[in-house]
């Protein structure tokens, strides 16, 4: 497991859509390296024969009947919008095509 470095952090910051200055990237890389070091022991004890637990309390098949419930008015929906026009949320130009 390679140590986490500044380029790694830059890549992660891009994935997480958080703009970071060079200084921040450096500082974060240092902090994270320490943290990652302390938690990597986890993989030692997590052997192949141990199943993963994603949900702490076993529950299955929680389903909802296909019935229409409550709905906002457009005004309510847009009530927190930083910018809106014509009943829709307004955002600056989108650079990338949708995936």
């Amino acid at each position, binding site marked *: 497991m390679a140590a986490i470095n500044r380029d790694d952090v830059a890549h992660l910051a891009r994935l997480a859509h958080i*703009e970071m200055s060079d200084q921040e990237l450096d500082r974060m890389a240092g902090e994270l390296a320490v943290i990652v070091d*302390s*938690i990597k022991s986890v993989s030692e004890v997590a052997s192949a024969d141990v199943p993963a*637990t994603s949900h702490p309390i076993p529950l299955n098949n929680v389903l909802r009947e296909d019935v229409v419930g409550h709905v906002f008015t457009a005004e309510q929906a847009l009530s927190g919008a930083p910018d809106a026009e014509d009943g829709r949320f307004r955002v*600056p*130009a989108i*650079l*990338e095509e949708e995936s």
Partner: protein
Amino acid sequence: MSELIKHSAAQLADKLAGGEVSAVEVTQAHLDRIAAVDTDVHAFLHVNTDEALAVAADVDSRRARGEQLHRLAGVPIAVKDLIVTIGQPTTAGSKILEGWHSPYDATVVKKLRAAGMPILGKTNLDEFAMGSSTEHSAFGPTRNPWDLDRIPGGSGGGSAAAVAAFEAPLALGTDTGGSIRQPGAVTGTVGVKPTYGGVSRYGAIALASSLDQIGPVSRTVLDSALLHEVIGGHDPFDSTSLTDPSTGLVEAALTGNVQGMRIGVVKELGGEGYQAGVEARFHESLELLRAAGAEIVEVSCPSFNYALGAYYLIMPSEASSNLAKFDGVRYGLRVLPEDGPMTIERVMGATRAAGFGDEAKRRIILGTYALSAGYYDAYYGSAQKVRTLIQRDFDAAFAQADVLISPTAPTTAFRLGEKLDDPLAMYLNDVATIPANLAGVPGLSLPSGLADEDGLPAGVQLLAPARQDARLYRVGAVLEAMLEESWGGPILAKAPALERVDTVEGK
């Protein structure tokens, strides 16, 4: 300062039911207390004066008309600002939600309203519940009522401090790795994390979805039981909520004996790293329980040594996904980049850079790392396996004991600023509380006394099997009674006065 604020919720409920006092009087007394001390304590981010008094007045008139009311009707409560409330702001302690007003109520808030409990306001927290000291709030820290230069714990320091400072008899908190229990321990109050799924998470801003629970904060075990029964129960809006009813908890708190119960001391939750005074108070609690007829046994849960590591993989991973929605598009802060092309991608980047604090960014990056391609198996995947091991250790321990016991946190309240530069040191505050969140089992913290070396509160933690929350209240209430007898009154009677006009309060 009104005597009313010194009452427990149960005492207030009795007086309200008996007509000795009105809900408006009770609510006003607490609002006055908040006005008097909160400049120093800073437990509250928002005080809900008008609505709280209106609700109180409504309760009074309904009671006067002879309506059947909930037992806690008219008893005021504070709500951690991670839980959405119509009519008040919800900030999650973050700049990214500053000024945001939720158009919907959390399920637990609906239940408080249905019970006629006036909401005094929203309490301070570490940003998005990420922290153990409330120092990571974007709006300034909360201070421990026992010593205003010290932290009140976190992430729910505001709720615990509010209750410890008599600004509210009850509060709601959330607990992901100890955020209710650890503040309880360092402020001399009671805090409970229910069984995962016991209380609806709908409307609690998610940190780590598989770990989060909303729970009660109070000054007595009985009060927490009363509040737990209000907020607990199945919610069709939360797919992870249990269908078990949250009943029998108050009854359990009133049982009054622990005869024949087996109390398991967890070997791994104590010893090195735990402050001497904290350990001393812990051992005294064991003696009291033994004297009360319980059997003390030692259990070992070796996987608990990996709990912190597993937690700091699972929690940031889920948090990184849960916090992705804060992007300046639909609500909250939007920051435009200063120069360069104005694209939504850059607006998101600038918004999140400005809106999130350092700790939040650290955890988001860490979580993104743990989930990213090539690392999933070693990190997140491994952590989920450790979770299995921790559950197995709990199962084995509960075969030998009815409840488990440990100090809640390794130390008493440290000074503001002391651990801010050392994230790892900060994370160690949660070492005893984290295993319960990973396994989904319920936990309760109550005051164990004051540590000799600094005179500050320490807490003792009880843990029970999933769905056996009642056991916590049964044992907790008995231990609390014995401890209070040994102290000559509640622990908070020993806390320094906050209001300048106060003389030192007697018992």
